[in-house]
């Protein structure tokens, strides 16, 4: 796509502080249970029993911060029966709350868990890529909140040229379902999507 805004995420420097998640939550005053940006802790590995001593062997852990990927193939938009989800010329995928019927079908279709149901307004909501800020030439709230500077926003092709073409590591789904507008620098222990030996370790959050 000639014109597609995209997120860049540097998993090698993310410390899992969740400033991005909270900045998003704060800007949109999201109700309990809704997190448009989420930070996952992914890890695994084992301990070895050697000479009577337990020794950490291949234990690993890393963080993945993720939101809506504003995909090139937005399945949420395709499956929405109410035509409430649209993709702007700059690639940003948006839900129109006035058109949404609250059937939650997009929730089943999106492998990133991006569309989330708002129990108060009874319609689906999701990351807007801070379209309001981007239209003024500003960064999304999550990007500016990141203390480690591991989130960036930019043109998809330019980000790929700068950082490579990786768009999926565990626990994110394989990129071929929706063609996410996402560029990742992997953590040194990052595992390929769908072939991970670890699991999501983040505790459930009451936020």
């Amino acid at each position: 796509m000639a014109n597609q805004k995209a997120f860049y995420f540097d998993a090698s420097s993310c410390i899992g502080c969740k400033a991005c998640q909270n900045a998003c939550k704060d800007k949109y005053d999201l109700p309990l249970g809704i997190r448009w940006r989420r930070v996952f802790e992914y890890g695994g590995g084992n301990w070895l029993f050697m000479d009577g001593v337990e020794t950490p062997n291949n234990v690993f852990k890393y963080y993945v911060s993720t939101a809506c990927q504003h995909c090139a193939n937005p399945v949420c938009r395709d499956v929405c029966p109410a035509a409430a989800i649209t993709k702007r010329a700059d690639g940003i995928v948006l839900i129109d709350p006035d058109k949404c019927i609250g059937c939650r079908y997009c929730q089943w279709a999106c492998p990133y868990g991006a569309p989330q149901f708002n129990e108060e307004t009874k319609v689906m909501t999701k990351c807007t890529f801070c379209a309001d800020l981007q239209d003024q030439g500003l960064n999304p709230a999550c990007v500016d909140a990141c203390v480690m500077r591991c989130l960036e926003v930019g043109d998809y092709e330019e980000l790929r040229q700068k950082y490579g073409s990786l768009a999926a590591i565990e626990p994110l789904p394989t990129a071929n379902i929706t063609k996410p507008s996402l560029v990742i620098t992997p953590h040194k222990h990052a595992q390929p999507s769908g072939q991970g030996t670890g699991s999501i370790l983040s505790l459930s959050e009451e936020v």
Partner: protein
Amino acid sequence: MNARDWALITFTILVQMSVGSMWVLGVAHFLAARKYGNEEADRLSDRALFALVPVIALAFIASLLHLGNPFNAYRAVTNLGSSWLSREIFFGVIFAVLAFVFAFLQWRKIGPLLLRNVIAGLAALVGLVLVFSMSNVYMLQAEPAWNSWATPVSFFATTFLLGALAMGAAFAANYAYLQSKKADCADAQCTLMREALRWIAVAAVVLVGVELVVLPIYLASVAGGSAAGLASVKLMAGSLGWMLALRVILAIVGAGVFAIFLYQNAMSAGHEKMLGNLAYAAFVIVLVAEVLGRVLFYASHVRIGI
């Protein structure tokens, strides 16, 4: 299971049962009319047809209950170009309208026979497209437990199994009603009901056979397909295993054992009371089995990703 899931379970089960019922009614009426004339055929199937009207209405009311904003429900048909859910609702509405119009014309005996038959035939054909669309709604790439050939196969099996046994129970109730009214048509109607129930019993045994063959192949293919698929199968065989077992046992009892009794008792006249009770029991048992199957369907899907 929350209220929203129950809305979907009610909607899908009742719609499938209604589509299957239209087919069973159509075939039964066609064969009855060839043998005993149109009037006796109407007497066999008219009341069963009228019973379908509230069932279809209930299905669509249930479907509204799963929406967050039902006032926007009319918008559900605005993405026919790419959304199978839009197509499902679209064909669902056409099916319902055709079925209601047909039931009304048949009730008042308005219009030529050919016109009524054409409307009924269209309703039955649209019903097949509806069940096909309904299957495709669930065949999402991110949902390996649903994205399988087994989804359409089992939806169609449910359609015809519930349609057949619902109409079997309806024919039995219709006959009991005619007898209580001491209608002078008892002999012909007795034969028609027995013959219909015999074929319904055969259909039930075949369809439950299909379900039993599909199940293990489906479980094996989903378990081997992906991590999310394996997680689904682990749910179905683990914490929800009792439900899967109960669902299979009830299907075998209702559509197997009871259907065989039904077939035997329908061979000769004189067991009408027994026949009626068997038809009611088979329908209720299989309805419970199919509802459990659908509960399992919604409770066991595990989406790929996060």
